């Protein structure tokens, strides 16, 4: 904001008046002084990036009607700043400490000997007025005139001239024997001295980091908002695969960083809010108002996570929220309205009807009235309204940030909606002569989600997708989903196709209207941190966060709901769960320049985390249903209804330390160590990390302005899931009180029970950071290898082993890959263009499987339910292990020339073996291409996102083929059959064979390449700045607009669930959506 004002005021014609200044400030920072002087004079300050506005000036600064010159001199005497009045500007220069004495002498110096003159232009040769030209180390300086000309006398030929201009890279030139020196300034690239917030909320100079991290600014997240802001990260973070959740508004995405490291654990990274690790995964982070986010820092590697403990093994997303700023009052209002349209709906045939009017199978005769319009008709246009307002203000003692956001979303499915309110209050205060800083915040979110899409087969989608194209949709749609039943004296479902055939085929409107579900969440996060400066560079910090989540769910299935879903009088379920999470830590933080060359920083800390999860659940069973139709209450639960209760407590304590030694700002050495005690693992475990960063000297010769190489090694342990390592596991009870023993046990063989160990990931990474083309371009490359040992696997136990499933430390998995970000500032005059490309490639390999089992393969999931694919970890047959996400299924039999083998009817023969490798779910390569164009007040940004490799098995397609509803089956019939080895075979027979009549499909025929390139995000904005106190920005925004390339007949960015083991399998999954809308932002 200041900078913006500054540029505007450069053009104000000068008015010189003798100025008198009065103010009285104790320990002010520079910003306060600037605003005091600016408010009392017509002068504006100009300064370069080396001036730190928030740095404190010690002591009392008291002036009573003092002349400006005197005031500046006084400040200059007491600080390292010198001031010079140039026109209507006051330029600030920072003296190097040693030069202090000299520069004081030089105030108003008369020793200038050499005159240098020239013209300052931008990179296109256009003259730049009002550029500050300053002799380094002095307050001798001036501004260029309207034609960019300057003329300055300097002390000697050794003098250095510093040209600075807002928005431009500061340029330094040695005078030498030039008397005419024209300077072309370059558009400012990102400042090198970027500060990043790393582990435990400690801020560090980006230069000193020994591992890869990526920062995403708050504006990136709020540019084109999604009700769940995590979805907006897709394509922006190198090395992260973000899969949108499948349940409509309010569902949480899956985030996978640098590949699957753990097969049974979830892949969620750890979320850290203002330095404090939070409970839960992506669904809880969705509760945060994106407008509150100052920035996100993404730590992908193990080194970065070493200080957060075992929960950070999948990477860390650090969320830093906004706080009030001293002396800055600001009100920000933002509003976004977007529409969601379902895309990628199945392609249906419209030429063939049913053979039996009671079945939806559409292998009947040709019809004339066929229509697939019901698909479009069923899905609503989703609507999202996100409004938020925030206030921030602060004085020197206390700063406050307050915000409120409201999200209203209506899903693409009828009756599915979400309301969310976020309230945030954050207070920061400095006490005891600024030695003690207190920072407290309270965050409350309430979220109400109604009729969220249920999983695959139980959702409304089987009903919509497999509606026979010859039938009249309007008979059952809208309010016709129910009809009056004179016998039951109530409305019942109107759907002739109710039949449990793998899926409970119901009227989709009935599902959305009468299979109701409510989800209500209240989430409080309150946290406080205190930081006490013991001495300069040594701080003691304590933090405590209390996280309270209360979830309530209720489901109401009305009578006449399909009988595998609910009983004769309907079904009812109510449940409540609570999470009580308390985190505290105590840190001793050292950050000190030992001498000019050596910087030492370190942290020593302890943390304690205690989580209590409790829940209670009551629900009817299908068998006993309810006492009365549609009376939904616990009173109505009949007979042996379902009841369960749970109370789980976990505790984790850690002691940790880290140290960074920096030498001459060139070499940085990082060492960390952490010991963890956790209630889910018997023994405590320790894991260290070490890293080195080296800023390469003399890279200018290579055309670089800066280059750094870094390398690190880290180990991260992962504590066991709750209850897994319990040798005497407790038992649950069935509805009638019989004890049901646990089905999953720690591995045993005879009497030999395996003592499970925590997983340990050892990772190496090396990286290169460079800036080139005069700092306009930047490159950040990382190569990594992470090997996870003692993989905790839940595998299907071999027949006869004595358990259904085993927990086992089953093997070694390695993820190797590269990731990088290249950005460039390609601005041309008023047109500013900042392209940036991020990319990643990850290769996942099984390196070893436990030899405790002789088995040839470990069955992770055989997907009996889906009857299509299985997921195994296999031992090598020809020397090569597979990778996680390998999918196995049936294939067609082929001869050695690749021709299909057929039976006597000409139908292709299906492999007897159900376990043939058909592909892998994970992408090989991801790339995101981000672009921002600005022209004056207008801006255009877009994100192109590409995913290469990997695939999805889609059961929806199988089912539609089996039912004769897919367009393929229609075309086959139009053509008189399907060509198999040059012979036409009957279409119905062919597809019944290929789909195994819906029960045992040839999976390889339904494995679709997930490669796609899409326009993920588009925002076109305009900012009105001449409205006085308000900056107003309007943007047209769009998400997921179209595909440049798509191989599958649907959007492959769908997945049956966001769990690790069902990756790459889709089954009546919600269609993805294209969103577009308008956003408005006002800043006061």
């Amino acid at each position: 904001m200041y900078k913006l004002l500054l540029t505007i005021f450069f053009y104000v014609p000068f008015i010189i008046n003798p100025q008198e200044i009065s103010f009285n400030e104790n320990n002010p920072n520079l910003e306060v002084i600037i605003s005091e002087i600016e408010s009392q004079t017509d002068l504006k300050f100009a300064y370069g990036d080396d001036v730190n506005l928030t740095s404190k000036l010690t002591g009392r600064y008291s002036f009573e009607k003092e002349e400006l010159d005197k005031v500046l001199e006084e400040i200059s005497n007491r600080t390292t700043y010198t001031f010079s009045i140039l026109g209507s500007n006051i330029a600030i220069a920072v003296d190097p400490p040693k030069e202090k004495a000299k520069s004081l002498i030089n105030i108003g110096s008369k020793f200038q000997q050499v005159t240098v003159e020239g013209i300052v232009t931008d990179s296109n040769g256009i003259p730049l007025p009002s550029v500050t030209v300053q002799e380094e180390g002095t307050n001798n300086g001036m501004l260029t005139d309207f034609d960019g000309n300057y003329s300055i006398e300097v002390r000697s030929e050794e003098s250095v001239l510093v040209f600075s201009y807002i928005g431009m890279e500061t340029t330094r030139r040695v005078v030498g024997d030039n008397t005419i020196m024209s300077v072309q300034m370059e558009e400012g690239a990102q400042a090198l001295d970027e500060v990043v917030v790393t582990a435990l909320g400690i801020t560090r100079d980006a230069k000193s980091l020994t591992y890869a991290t990526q920062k995403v600014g708050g504006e990136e997240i709020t540019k084109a908002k999604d009700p769940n802001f995590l979805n907006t990260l897709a394509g922006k973070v190198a090395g992260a695969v973000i899969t949108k959740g499948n349940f409509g508004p309010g569902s949480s995405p899956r985030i996978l960083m640098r590949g699957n490291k753990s097969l049974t654990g979830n892949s969620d990274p750890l979320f850290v809010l203002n330095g404090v690790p939070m409970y839960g995964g992506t669904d809880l982070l969705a509760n945060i108002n994106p407008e509150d986010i100052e920035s996100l820092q993404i730590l992908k590697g193990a080194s970065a996570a070493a200080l957060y403990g075992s929960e950070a093994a999948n990477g860390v997303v650090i969320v830093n929220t906004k706080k009030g700023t001293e002396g800055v009052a600001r009100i920000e209002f933002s509003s976004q309205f977007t529409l969601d349209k379902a895309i990628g709906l199945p392609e249906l045939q419209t030429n063939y009807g049913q053979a039996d009017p009671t079945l939806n199978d559409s292998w009947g005769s040709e019809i004339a009235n066929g229509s697939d319009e019901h698909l479009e008709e069923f899905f609503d246009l989703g609507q999202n309204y996100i409004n938020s307002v925030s206030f921030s203000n602060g004085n020197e003692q206390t700063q406050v940030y307050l915000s409120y956001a409201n999200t209203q979303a209506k899903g693409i499915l009828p009756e599915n909606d979400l309301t969310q309110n976020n309230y945030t209050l954050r207070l920061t205060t400095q006490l005891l002569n600024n030695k003690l800083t207190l920072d407290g915040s309270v965050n409350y979110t309430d979220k109400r989600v109604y009729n969220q899409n249920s999983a695959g087969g139980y959702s409304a989608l089987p009903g919509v997708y497999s509606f026979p194209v010859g039938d009249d949709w309007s008979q059952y749609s809208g309010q016709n989903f129910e009809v009056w039943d004179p016998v039951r004296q109530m409305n019942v479902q109107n759907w002739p196709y109710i039949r449990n055939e793998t899926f409970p085929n119901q009227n989709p409107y009935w599902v959305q209207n009468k299979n109701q579900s409510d989800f209500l969440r209240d989430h409080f996060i309150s946290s406080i941190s205190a930081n006490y400066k013991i001495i300069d560079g040594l701080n003691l910090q304590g933090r405590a966060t209390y996280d309270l989540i209360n979830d309530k769910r209720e489901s109401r299935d009305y009578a006449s709901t399909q009988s595998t879903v609910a009983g004769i009088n309907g079904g009812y379920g109510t449940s409540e769960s609570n999470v009580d999470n308390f985190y505290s830590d105590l840190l001793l933080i050292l950050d000190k320049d030992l001498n000019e060359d050596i910087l030492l920083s370190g942290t020593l800390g302890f943390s304690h985390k205690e989580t209590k999860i409790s829940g209670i659940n009551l629900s009817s069973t299908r068998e006993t249903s309810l006492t009365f139709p549609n009376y939904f209450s616990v009173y109505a639960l009949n007979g042996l209804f379902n009841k369960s209760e749970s109370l789980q407590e976990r505790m984790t304590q850690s002691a940790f330390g880290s140290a960074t030694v920096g030498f001459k700002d060139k070499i940085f050495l990082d060492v960390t160590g952490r010991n963890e005690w956790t209630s889910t693992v018997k023994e405590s475990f320790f894991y260290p990390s070490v890293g080195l960063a080296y800023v390469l000297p003399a890279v200018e010769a290579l055309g670089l302005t800066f280059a750094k190489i870094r390398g690190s090694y880290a180990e991260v342990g992962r504590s066991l899931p709750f209850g897994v390592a319990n040798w005497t596991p407790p038992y649950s009870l069935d509805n009638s009180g019989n004890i049901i023993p646990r089905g999953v046990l720690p591995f045993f063989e005879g009497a030999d029970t395996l003592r499970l160990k925590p997983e340990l990931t050892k990772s190496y990474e090396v990286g290169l950071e460079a800036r080139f083309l005069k700092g306009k371009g930047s490159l950040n490359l990382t190569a990594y290898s992470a090997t996870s040992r003692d993989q905790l696997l839940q595998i299907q136990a071999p027949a006869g082993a004595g358990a259904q499933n085993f927990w086992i430390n089953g093997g070694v998995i390695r993820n190797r890959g590269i990731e990088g970000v290249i950005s460039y500032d390609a601005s041309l005059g008023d047109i500013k263009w900042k392209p940036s490309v991020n990319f990643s490639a990850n290769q996942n390999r099984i390196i070893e499987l436990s030899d405790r089992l002789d088995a040839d393969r470990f069955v992770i999931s055989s997907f009996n339910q889906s009857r299509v694919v299985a997921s195994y970890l296999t031992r090598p047959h020809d020397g090569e292990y597979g990778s996680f996400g390998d999918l196995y299924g049936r294939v067609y039999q082929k001869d050695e020339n690749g021709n299909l083998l057929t039976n006597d009817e000409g139908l292709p023969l299906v492999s007897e073996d159900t376990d043939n490798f058909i592909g892998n779910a994970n992408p090989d390569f991801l790339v995101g291409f981000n672009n921002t164009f600005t022209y004056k007040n207008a801006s255009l940004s877009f994100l192109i996102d590409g995913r290469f490799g990997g695939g999805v098995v889609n059961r929806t397609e199988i089912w539609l083929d089996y039912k004769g509803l897919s367009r393929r089956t229609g075309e086959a019939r139009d053509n008189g059959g399907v060509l198999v080895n040059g012979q036409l075979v009957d279409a119905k027979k062919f597809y019944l064979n290929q789909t195994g009549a819906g029960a045992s499909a040839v999976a390889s025929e339904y494995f679709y390449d997930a490669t796609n390139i899409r326009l993920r995000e588009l925002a076109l904005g305009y900012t009105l700045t001449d409205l006085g106190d308000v900056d107003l920005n309007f943007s047209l925004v769009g998400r997921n607009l179209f595909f440049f390339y798509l191989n599958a007949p649907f959007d492959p960015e769908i997945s049956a669930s966001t769990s690790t083991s069902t990756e790459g399998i889709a089954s009546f999954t919600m269609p993805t959506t294209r969103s577009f809308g308008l956003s408005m932002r006002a800043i006061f």
Partner: protein
Amino acid sequence: MQIKNFKLKKMKKLKNKINKKLVVGLCLPLFLFSSCTKEMEGLNQDQKLISSKQLEADANEGGFALPGMQLGIIDALTTWRFEMQQVLNADNYSGYMSLPSPFYDNRNNVTYAMVDSWNGEIWNVPSEKVLNQWVMMKRQGFDTKYPDLYSLSVIFKTFAGHRLVDIFGPIPYSDYGTGTDVSFDSEQEAYSLFFEELGEAVAVLKEFEADDPTADQIRYAKFDKSLYGGDYATWIKVANTLRLRLAMRISDIDPAKAQAEAEAAVSEGVLTGNEGSFEVPTGSIHPLVTITSSWNETRLNAAVETMLKGYNDPRLATYALPSTIEGLEGEIKGVRSGAAFGPVSTYNDYSQVNFIDKPSVKIMDVAESYFLRAEGALRGWDMGGSANDFYEEGIRVSFNANGVGGAEDYLNNNTATPIAYVDPLNSENNADPMTSITIQWEEADTFEQKLERIITQKWIAMYPEGQEAWSEFRRTGYPQLWPVVENFNDDIPDGEFIKRIPYPTSITSASVQAVQEAVSQYLDGEDSAGTPLWWDVD
């Protein structure tokens, strides 16, 4: 006053809570870690579940697994598992039930196109609920600590084990639970072990019964979910009846052992009408009620309809509900096995099976004991009576158990024979009677006729326990059933019947090696539905 007290208490509670947090927070420094980790002990389990420690009280640890085992031989509590474990295979193959609509275009288990995901439950249910629990008891040394309760677990294990062998053939049994690469037993080995196990279990229970006749009431009554009230004397009879059943199964392949085992079982005492059938109450409704009436996924088989109609059997009205077919309302009408569906393929109007007000799942019918002895006597074994007497007594016991009268008239009927089947929707399914066997015992009849008579009546009595009925059908070929109308399995010639169920992936995927060995050693190299089991010889 009251309110004040309450408030005070609440505040105190709150204080305690805060204090605890504070204390925990304060014990951060390293030197206190030892005390903190102590606090972690015991946290690694859900506090609302019941722990082994809590189960030690009242010596519950010895028997708590037994109810689940009883209820898990056939999954009586989980309707969909019950359906997949039994209804969608054996209940159809035995001629008791039929699928009333063409699932998967009529290519499913019923038409011999095997549906792997259904068949997985045939293995999963008993292995998870019976065999694995037996392993748990064994691993905890309950065979010596609670020999009587352990012996009961062995009886349940044998029930589960023999059913599995009779379905799949070779299964891992003798080494079950001893390792992770358990090889499969041949059917013969498994059967030998069944006899051994039952013999030992009976010996242990007898010993307990002799030592203290009331021990069972204290130790087992609370865990016995059957109608037997925990009486060891009855369980001894159950075990012996099972032994007799298994002996009969091997009567063709190993007549000598069959006779020896059968005679031993009978001399030790088998079930009589006094004890009744081995049934387990589900606590709510019979799973078949849900499957037939609300899911519409099973109907009465045409075989039951035509057989019982022909015999004018009063049990028919208790076995099935009248149809709602237009023009045939009130009449019982079954569906043909593996029926061909016509243009209208929903047979929901056909007769539902009737288990309303019968909330118990039957595992072994008491009348079976009599029919087994009848067959034994027919084979010339010492069964303590004549084939004729046991045959007639078996029918009487069955009539009794079903609460119907007229047994004597029924027994003396020597004319009635099964009738032809007429499908009102699709004549393709129509069929002439398969047999002309009558009810009345005819001493002059041939062995085969007598055997058919015994097995046919046993089949009627055992309804709806299709697993045993299917096994006996394969062994004896009785009752005579119609082959499936539609057959989608190339391994089974048209007109033939399914011989076994191929291993589902829930067995094969994790036990590749062991399955391959079993198939090559014991199944002629092919895991097919057409391979007869070891005892299935003609």
